[in-house]
């Protein structure tokens, strides 16, 4: 009876709906590297970017832009000129968000390591020269007044504004203050960070009063004062499974230089077993992009290399760098598959963000921007830009018809996957989950934990 009463009470509290106040403690295995707008280097960076910073635009599940600091937009010149109107927003330091701040932020973004920035520079007038630092002029980016800015493109593209949703394109004030839903009250350190709700956020004050990032052992999530964290890696992970467990093979060095060897490797991993037994909450992945971003083509009728090659074996030695956010059990399983294939594999841990071309790696990949074309560009860059893929991507970018473009992207994805340089293995959720009583936590397709609308029961 007591349990029922308590359960009923809890149900009654959650049924009351969101409430303001409270503190959300998020336990993280590693600290954020920087509070500056930049390409996120890991889970902590993605969470911090979502807390502190705001971008001009976001993207919805179909990759279409949605308002953020920009409240409306309009196109002209057959889609080659876009005028963006800023919402009446304020930075954490009290300064109003103006078009000059937006231009300054975008100019910094264009020279960042972001794949989305590379895409934007390629299509923006003067963007390539500016990105290569051969010119400081940027004809494609101007302001009309304090609230409006204009982007001019060389060609008309299907998703001209999606790149502005990159976390690296966040806008900060002249003094470096962000415009996100929470204001950091302590500088980021190895022990974590504390942030308070920003009352003048562009979408209104968040429900939570305080968000605290606590750095500690991943399997504990306990603070030094004994209070348990609200969001930990030990709780059931939050759906959806947006991360891609990706095996990156080096086509330039033996034994992976052989396309057959890479195909055998790609076919050797039992993805269903991997996802079911070694990745809690995970799903087998046959395609590079999540179905929500780009539905895969129907399975090919041709037999797989596993079926044709008998006996299937690949000899040689491979040093596999495994990103620290890859679950150890999943990595051990992948290594077991490779070993069963005949390879001698040495798995060594590597930082999550240290992705370098020419090194076999096992990593968890999240798209920088949840838009299929940009995501494929990002993957193509990881794979070393296979020639047919680059051409096809540029061609697809010019297709403004949604269905035609999707079909093009599906073929590009299949082509890119067919090189077997990028081997998708499984989809896995962000390894964080909230305790009971924590509501409205959301994970984006880019792997960011959104706490803007979260609330906790008292």
């Amino acid at each position, binding site marked *: 009876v007591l349990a029922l009463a308590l359960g009923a009470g809890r149900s009654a509290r959650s049924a009351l709906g969101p409430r303001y106040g409270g503190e959300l403690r998020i336990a993280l295995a590693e600290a954020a590297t920087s509070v500056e707008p930049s390409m996120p280097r890991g889970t902590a960076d993605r969470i911090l970017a979502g807390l502190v910073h705001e971008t001009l635009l976001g993207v919805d599940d179909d990759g279409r832009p949605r308002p953020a600091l920009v409240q409306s937009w309009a196109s002209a010149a057959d889609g080659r000129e876009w005028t963006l109107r800023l919402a009446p927003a304020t930075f954490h330091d009290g300064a109003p968000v103006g078009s000059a701040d937006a231009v300054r932020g975008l100019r910094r973004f264009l020279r960042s390591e972001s794949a989305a920035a590379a895409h934007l520079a390629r299509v923006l007038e003067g963007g390539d020269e500016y990105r290569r630092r051969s010119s400081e002029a940027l004809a494609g980016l101007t302001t009309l007044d304090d609230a409006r800015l204009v982007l001019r493109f060389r060609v008309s593209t299907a998703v001209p504004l999606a790149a502005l949703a990159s976390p690296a394109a966040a806008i900060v004030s002249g003094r470096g203050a962000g415009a996100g839903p929470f204001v950091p009250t302590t500088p980021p350190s190895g022990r974590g960070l504390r942030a308070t709700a920003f009352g003048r956020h562009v979408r209104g004050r968040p429900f939570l009063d305080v968000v605290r990032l606590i750095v500690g052992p991943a399997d504990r999530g306990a603070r030094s004062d004994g209070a348990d964290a609200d969001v930990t890696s030990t709780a059931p992970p939050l759906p959806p499974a947006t991360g891609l467990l990706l095996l990156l093979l080096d086509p330039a060095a033996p034994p992976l230089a052989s396309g057959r060897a890479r195909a055998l490797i790609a076919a050797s991993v*039992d993805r269903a*077993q991997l996802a079911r*037994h*070694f990745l809690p909450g995970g799903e087998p992945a046959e395609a590079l992009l999540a179905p929500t971003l780009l539905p895969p083509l129907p399975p090919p009728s041709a037999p797989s290399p596993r079926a044709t090659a008998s006996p299937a074996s690949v000899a040689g030695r491979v040093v*596999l760098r*495994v990103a620290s956010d*890859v679950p*150890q*059990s999943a*990595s*051990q*399983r992948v*290594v*077991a*598959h490779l*070993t*069963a294939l005949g390879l001698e*594999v*040495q*798995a*060594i*841990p590597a930082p999550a963000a240290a992705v370098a071309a020419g090194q076999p790696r*096992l990593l968890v990949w999240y798209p920088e921007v949840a838009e299929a074309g940009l995501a494929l560009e990002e993957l193509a860059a990881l794979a070393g830009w296979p020639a047919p893929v680059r051409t096809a991507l540029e061609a697809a970018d010019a297709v403004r018809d949604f269905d035609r473009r999707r079909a093009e992207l599906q073929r590009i994805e299949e082509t890119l996957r067919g090189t077997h340089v990028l081997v998708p293995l499984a989809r896995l959720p962000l390894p964080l989950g909230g305790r009971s009583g924590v509501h409205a936590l959301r994970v984006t397709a880019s792997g960011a934990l959104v706490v803007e609308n979260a609330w906790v029961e008292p």
Partner: protein
Amino acid sequence: VSRLSEGRRGQGLRGRLLAAFVLVAVPPLLLFAVFVIALVSDRLERAARQRLGQGLDGVRARVGRLQREADAAVAAIVRDKVSATPISDDNARNAAAELGASHGLPLLEIVDGSGRVLSSRHWPAGVGLPEGDHEVAGTSDLRWETIAEDYGAAERLAVVATHRGTWSGVPVVVRGGFPLDAEVLGELSDLMGAEVALRDRARGRWVARADSPLAKAGAFDPSKGDGTVDIAGTVYRWAAAPLGASLWEVVAVPHTLLAEVTGGVRWLTLGVAALALLAALATALVLSGRIAGPVRELAARARGVGAGDLEHTAVEASDEVGELARAFASMTHELRTSRERLVQAERVAAWREMARRLAHELKNPIFPIQLSIETLRRALDQSAAQDAERFQSLFRESSDTILDELRSLRAIVEEFSQFARMPPPRLAPTDLRELVERVLALYRARAATVRIETGLAEGLPPVPADRDLLARALGNLVANALEAMPDGGTLSVKTRAVAEGVALEVSDTGPGLTEEQRTRLFTPYYTTKKGGTGLGLAIVQGIVSDHGGRIQVESAPGAGTTFTLVLPSAMGNGHVEPGGAA
């Protein structure tokens, strides 16, 4: 030179005594050192071999115990558990972990007949995949097991037991055991105080704790059984025994420890031997000093006796050398007594000779005086009978005789007086050439029948001499030469430079001297001349001796006589007046 050679002889005796001591002491000491070093080295070698053997036994014992435990546990699992557990996808995955935990087996794997892993505690990632293990050649109990580690897997050596069974009717192989890894070998190493490792020759791999020096020994062949190996500058002594066809257990201890102990003993032994040698040398020095010292002192005393020193002849010694010293002292005492008696006898003889000479010299003038006076008295008694003229004549003759003899007496007295009162020379640089010319000038008139020749060397340095005394000595020699040639002859005076200074030769062509005459020539009051006092040559010898020189004579009957005065050219101890003799 003589003294130096005597000293060397003394040192030679001592050196020979020392050498004898060393020859007697060193060989036993060296033998002792070699024996001790060999003994200690042998004992340490045995201890090292025993330690290595114990290490090998310890590894075998540990492996055997692990094998028995693994065998019992796996047999129990096969008998009681596996067959009773239904196979399903989920329980298959967890079965090995649960069974391994309940039976204390860190390694447990169930594989089907084709070698596919059905369940694994130590390699859960391999479920459904063929097992990737490798059996160590020559043994079924030792295997390289694939074990999950960090983000991948690693091969680890393990002691396993394998049993066949069925799992829900499916034939399976259950293999379980314990890792024979760095941790176990580290424990054994700590327990035995030696480095314990395993070497798989076929795979060229070491199993050892991370900091084990053996793991750094690259090309290593344990099949020799034992030996030494240099690893990073440190030499290890090792022993090995096979655990399988390709697996060897290797136990090693730093050889430097053995070498250090052996070296320490070697140095200690050599140090003791060196100290003993030094002690023997010191003893030899003392003993040889006590033996050779009195001998050297006795030799010095003998040289002193030879030089005329007959005093202080006592030498302190207690043994045979002391007996010799006492005999030598007695001999010296007797010699001293004899010399005193001889001197006394010589003195008496000299006095007698002088008395005889005095009596003889005085008797000769006294007798004429007596005769003259007796003649005068007789003449006085007969004066009455004789005439006065004859008396006067007789008186005059007698008185003349008396006066002559009195003069002769005065000359004799004067000469004795001069000999007794020989003054010390007053040395001054003297030109011998000028001196010889001056002296010869005095005698040329008296040498009417004698031809005088001179051979005076040019450029002779002045000699330190008392000009008057030396002129007197030269005058005596010249007078003697002239008197030796009453019938004529040749007097030769020469000067020449010799090693000691300047030589002055006075030669005559007279009758020469007999041997007896020559030996007594410088004896006072000895003379071969009628009316001579025998003091002339004694005076010459005294003058020459006072000048630090020497006189020698060469003569033979019928061959003339040559006197050679050798005078030193450097100033001696005599009194010197720069302005010349007074």
